[in-house]
């Protein structure tokens, strides 16, 4: 199975991609997934990650449904993980 990661805003600029596909066999902890992505996109990790968490000001969303930040939260292996700014205001 594959977790589809969609980057928005600054995350998209730093990774220089709109999506990344992460193979997974079973649910993966959010922290593990972010760390894995950090290895793939070091520039993004340097700015947006603090260990295995997103920095203050950034947030993740699963399947467009629920926002998550706890690194232990399990992400299904067929989910879409959206990574975006936590600041929705315009």
């Amino acid at each position: 199975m594959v977790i589809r990661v969609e980057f928005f805003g600054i995350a998209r600029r730093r990774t220089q991609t709109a999506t990344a596909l992460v193979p997974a066999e079973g649910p993966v902890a959010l922290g593990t997934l972010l760390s894995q992505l950090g290895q793939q996109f070091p520039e993004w990790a340097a700015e947006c990650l603090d260990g295995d968490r997103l920095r203050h000001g950034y947030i993740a969303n699963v399947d467009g449904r629920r926002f998550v930040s706890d690194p232990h939260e399990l992400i299904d292996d067929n989910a879409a993980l959206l990574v975006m700014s936590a600041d929705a205001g315009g």
Partner: protein
Amino acid sequence: MIDTVSQPHDGPVPAGYHGRYLSVDLDRGRGVTRPLREDVLRRFLGGSGLGTWLLCQAGHAATDPLAPAAPLVFALSPLVGSPLTTSAKFALVAKSPLTHRINDSLVSSGFALAAKKCGCDALVIQGRAAEPSILVIDDGQVRLQPAGDLWGRTCPETEQALREQFGPEYQAAVIGPAGERLVSYATVSHAGRHAGRGGHGAVLGSKNLKAVLVRGTQRCAWASPGELAELARALAARSLGPATAKYRELGTATNLLVLDRLHALPTRNFQSGSFGDVARLAPESLDGQRSHVRASCVACTIGCEHRYQLRNGGSSAGDHVRVEYENLFALGALCGISDPDTVLHACRQCDDWGLDTISAGGTIAFAMECVERGWLDAPWLRFGSGSALLTALAKIVRRDGLGDALARGSRDLARSLGAKALAIAPQVKGLELPGYEPRAMQTLALGLAVGTRGADHNRSGAAEVDFSEYANRRGLTTAAAARAVESEDRSALLDSLILCRFLRHALDDLHADAARMLRLVTGWDMSPDELRQTARRIITLKKLYNIRAGWTPDEDQLPDRFFDQPLPDDPHACLARDAFTAAVRAYNAARGWTESGLVDPQLCSQLGLLDCGSQ
């Protein structure tokens, strides 16, 4: 020259303030400098808070907003002129001709700095000049002069002409043709930024004022200048960190793709939450296609302003147009238009003529749906038609034909079409909804409904609750009400300090940080809890003003369209009316108001609101 007298001030004046405001009566040709007591300044700070207090003192809330007696308040704040980043802002506060309720809007830049050097913390204007005029406040001296051929000119033309005539030391807040013609959502413009919402431009136009021009030399002292400079340096460094990168590099327009993905981007007058062609309008695509420059308000280290080149234009800065999320949503997706040239052109027209983009786009999109449903006979006004959008904007500003009805906003137009139209008119209290689909962001839906100035995302701030794990954005509960209150309180504090809301993620703890700033500026030893209470006081005073102006509980409501029907493109996004009603009650309870949203005298006493006018 306007005769100006000074009333004596016998109390202490805290650092950061002048301790007085200037009241100008255009009918009598008189100005009075009146004292502001320290306890008033400490209770209401500045900006929105102080402006609301002055509005309550200056006039009767039932007065027609365009009558000469209606006051228009320009309120500064203790932080204006300090080295703290994003603090060069002022608030305009008045009764709105669009909503007939309180309206407070903020604007940035040099006007705030120059106005504070005039030696006052606020300016209150009442009356009506005998002919189209410019009000000049020159270091406390006040004069009126004929606007002459400035009347009829666009906002940037007016500012440019005033700069040439008076020189760069003077700063101007101006109206465009929309304000002159009393369009209910006309803006007051300064340096390309606008006090956008609720029609302050029409209020200034109703006073026959094309511009207010300020210059001064009087400075306030700071209580602890050395420590303040240190704090300002630290804050400036934090303002350049990751929390504000979005604003610096992409601007607010980057919200388009995110909100579209979450089915929260209002499209075709809220008939859908996503717009197939959204990518064409997003800064991520605009960037590669046309020249792009960044700009910033005076005294701001973030610089969130992004300007994109208009096609067929040259390469000078004048050929670039400011792009914000709300403009792209309202003049793009909401009207079903994806052609970037058309949308940028419409943004430019609104900026030049002094029209609020959200209300202009919202009213036009509503009319487009009425045409689609056969309720309005204007076959040219179709979703997706760029020429229809540009024609409608021109008609609004000329008040020509259908444009005259559109110039009064969607609620007024809906009332003329009947109850079925009111159900889909995108407004609360008459103020058009901003770019967040209420069914997909339900804490914000609550914030929009209960907001004192109507459907407003800046005063509410509840969008960030929906963008967090603390709420289910598609399932409103009463628990969300407390968070809606907190976010609204934070906004009230930022708007009264005044600091830009885009700085908030760079602060560790808003209340503690604000208490420190105020201590270094004014010398007050304020606790975070005192500031929490200040925010509650300000919001309750706005509510009291609305009650005096005729507010009734049924105004804290969304249009029927949003209830009990799922969003067509997201079946999980359904706002249950029962849950919403319960959340409004929970909100009122969390504010200490009665179940129906009234304010009892005991609360007024607790909050220190007993001297806030009774009219």
